[in-house]
């Protein structure tokens, strides 16, 4: 079979420039800024700062503004196609925050009021509305989220996991981001002026954009462009500031070009991240100069739209696709006198000229960098042959549970005793001085401890390149503390430290700094299946020969916020793996096999069983099933499990893992660690075998995640 390519066959976009491709196109041609003083909510103590605000956002089922913006973009894509997406990937940072912050301020405590809070709830809501029954992934890597979403979508196609992927980004204005960037003194009071000598910062904005990516060997009718490649990297340098020499940004750009099989000389245009902050623009200019001796035309569109955070990468992918399709390079709106210190002259005005290839950059907090290469159809290098999901050999494991770290957890597990609860992090030994982790609150601290322990457990020691982290709720302590200080002070004061720590990717990017992990740094979110999503995403993007990667699932239980967001939670903690994407090592292998959205339904069970090779192979390969049945949809999960038993006639022990891990969104990561340790030992704790033979008979364990998603991970015996 020939290599498969990913063509952009539809777009949808909404921003301060209006709704739809034509409104966006008009604004790009005119090239005048769409930034206006904030009107969406009252600015408490300063004149309203310029923002990129979307006018007339319709009310959609009482949903948060991020969901409504996403829908405005998605409906444009759907209106122009007969195709049905079989996968959905969304980049977002705010999720339901625009609504959540109002509810919290008003003292609302009923969980049903927060059912659309999670950053993953946007994609889940869209998938429900579209009846999508395939992979549904939410990536939250701060301001590179939208670009990271398209990278993941491309790998879904290359791995044959989907044929039609709806991928994009969405973020809405809210007080959290408005005051957060203000506290960091990263806002230009005159409106963003990227690359200008006098630039003083960015302009916070909102919007959404999606592309419909279609897998094909040759361009389908109506294809606007091809997503030829994408790459990412992590600065592993600082929680908010970019690595000043631009080497992190450079690594992402080089990875994207290599992925597309292209050289820098082939680029016709670089769409800069170009936020307008002094540090970003300087580091990015250095990176571009290092990439290309003689750079092609460059510009940033953030003086026009503002910085739409998690949506920006998707918005700029649509702008880039339009530029290719219609032959246009956008002007660098807002820049009047280019900063000579940058050594990089942007296109000040838009110009019509043929564009066959574009590199588009997005860089986020935590040094999470991502770049895309879009080209005219078939103008990049040869397509790669399709490949399967990666198969991982386990180099190291770690967990944190109510019993403590791995050793203490296992002691209870082998006795068949539950270990639900909150781990006491202060009791965990670490060689890191207290001063260096003083800013890390509960979730970031857990993730760092897990990452260090998983690395430590590897024999021989191995340094991770990438980190893949799954979390449903993110850093709750920072989120809570930031909002509390904001509300308590009448919106006068906030904590910049808490803002930086509150982003979902803060824990994984902090861990990257300590571990000097400069590879892909990807944080994904999808409720109780966030760990499975992280492992699946790692399986999509890693290949044999890549350095080992950490895959982590963790969650914190917060006294105020957890009862609102996840009322069933009784515990916290998590699990971590150091994995070698070669597979077939001396330890057990961990293999992501299946990941599909199927809320409460069991119609996805036949596809799951087929992914696992059918009933006979399941009986032959697995001596036990570990099943995660989240409390949020326990009855739906039980019905799915019943159908699994019926259709496979599985007769070995089935272990309900939440009975001993406790109930929390990261429980499946702990269960996966225990499954690996159980396969290493070759037998279940007798108390968990339900009176049956606890020995695995040389077989592995199948990890099933049921409920909102249907997921399967193989833990295969060596």
């Amino acid at each position, binding site marked *: 079979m020939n290599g498969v390519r990913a063509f952009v066959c539809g777009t949808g976009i909404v921003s301060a420039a209006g709704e739809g491709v034509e409104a966006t196109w008009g604004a790009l041609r005119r090239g005048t800024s769409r930034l206006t003083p904030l009107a969406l909510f009252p600015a408490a103590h300063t004149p309203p700062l310029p923002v990129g605000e979307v006018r007339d956002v319709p009310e959609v089922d009482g949903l948060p503004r991020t969901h409504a913006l996403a829908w405005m973009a998605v409906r444009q894509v759907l209106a122009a196609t007969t195709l049905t997406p079989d996968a959905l990937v969304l980049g977002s940072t705010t999720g339901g925050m625009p609504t959540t912050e109002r509810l919290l301020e008003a003292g609302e405590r009923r969980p049903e009021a927060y059912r659309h809070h999670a950053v993953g709830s946007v994609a889940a809501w869209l998938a429900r509305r579209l009846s999508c029954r395939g992979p549904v992934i939410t990536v939250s890597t701060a301001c590179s989220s939208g670009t990271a979403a398209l990278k993941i979508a491309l790998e879904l196609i290359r791995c044959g996991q989907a044929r039609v992927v709806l991928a994009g980004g969405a973020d809405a204005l809210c007080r959290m981001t408005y005051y957060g960037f203000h*506290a960091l*003194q990263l806002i230009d009071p005159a409106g963003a002026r990227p690359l200008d000598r006098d630039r003083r910062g960015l302009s916070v904005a909102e919007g959404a954009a999606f592309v419909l990516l279609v897998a094909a060997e040759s361009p389908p009718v109506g294809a606007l462009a091809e997503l030829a490649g994408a790459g990412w990297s992590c600065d592993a340098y600082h929680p908010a500031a970019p690595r000043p020499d631009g080497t992190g940004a450079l690594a992402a750009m080089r990875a994207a070009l290599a992925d597309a099989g292209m050289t820098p000389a082939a680029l016709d245009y670089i769409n800069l991240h170009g936020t307008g902050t002094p540090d970003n623009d300087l580091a990015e200019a250095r990176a571009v100069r290092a990439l290309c001796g003689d750079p092609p035309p460059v510009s940033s569109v953030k003086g026009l739209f503002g910085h739409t955070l998690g949506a920006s990468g998707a918005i700029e992918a649509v702008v880039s696709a339009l530029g290719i399709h219609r032959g246009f390079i956008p002007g660098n709106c807002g820049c009047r006198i280019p900063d000579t210190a940058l050594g990089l002259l942007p296109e000040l005005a838009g110009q019509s000229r043929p564009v066959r290839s574009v590199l588009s950059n997005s860089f986020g907090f935590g040094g999470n960098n991502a770049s895309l290469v879009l080209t005219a159809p078939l103008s990049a290098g040869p397509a790669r042959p399709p490949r399967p999901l990666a198969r991982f050999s386990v180099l190291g494991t770690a967990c944190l549970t109510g019993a403590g770290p791995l050793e203490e957890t296992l002691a209870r597990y082998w006795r068949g005793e539950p270990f639900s609860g909150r781990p006491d992090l202060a009791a965990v030994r670490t060689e890191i001085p207290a*001063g260096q982790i003083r800013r890390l609150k509960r979730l970031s601290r857990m993730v760092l401890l897990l990452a260090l322990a998983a690395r430590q457990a590897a024999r021989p020691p191995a340094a991770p390149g990438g980190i893949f982290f799954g979390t449903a709720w993110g850093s709750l302590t920072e989120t809570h503390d930031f909002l509390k200080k904001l509300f308590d002070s009448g919106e006068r004061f906030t904590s910049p430290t808490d803002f*930086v720590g509150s982003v979902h990717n803060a824990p994984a990017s902090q861990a990257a700094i300590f571990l000097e992990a400069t590879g892909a740094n990807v944080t994904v979110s999808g409720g109780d299946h966030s760990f499975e999503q992280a492992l699946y995403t790692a399986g999509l993007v890693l290949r044999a020969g890549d350095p080992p990667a950490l895959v982590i699932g963790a969650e914190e239980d917060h006294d105020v916020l957890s009862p609102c967001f996840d009322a069933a939670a009784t515990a916290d903690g998590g699990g971590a793996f150091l994995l070698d994407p070669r597979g077939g090592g001396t330890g057990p292998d961990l293999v992501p096999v299946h990941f599909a959205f199927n809320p409460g339904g069991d119609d996805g069970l036949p596809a799951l069983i087929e992914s696992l090779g059918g009933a006979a192979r399941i009986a032959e390969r697995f001596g036990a099933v570990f099943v995660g049945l989240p409390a949020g949809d326990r009855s739906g999960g039980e019905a799915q499990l019943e159908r699994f038993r019926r259709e496979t006639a599985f007769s070995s022990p089935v272990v309900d893992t939440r009975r001993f891990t406790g109930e929390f969104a990261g429980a499946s990561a702990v269960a996966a660690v225990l499954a690996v340790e159980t396969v290493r030992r070759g037998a279940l704790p007798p108390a968990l075998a339900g009176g049956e033979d606890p020995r695995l008979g040389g077989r592995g364990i199948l990890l099933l995640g049921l409920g909102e998603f249907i997921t399967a991970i193989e833990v295969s015996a060596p």
Partner: protein
Amino acid sequence: MEGFIAELKDKIIETLGLTDVRPEDIPVDGQLIGSELGLDSIDVLELVMMIEKDYGVKIENREVGVKVFASLRALAAYIDANRREKDR
């Protein structure tokens, strides 16, 4: 002024969660940021917030910030001068 410097040391330790730092570890005339204390730009901004909240003194741009945070003594003098100016 020495009394005010001592007060600021306590505020810095509390605001930045420097649990393993004693007041005498904080240099008065030496470099505050980038010293052995391990403070960086986010800490500066956290202190900017604290100074506005507790002393009503704003430090809103980078150029001023670089001078003001050159040392603890410079910081104390700046707060003191601007607080008085405001009181007049």
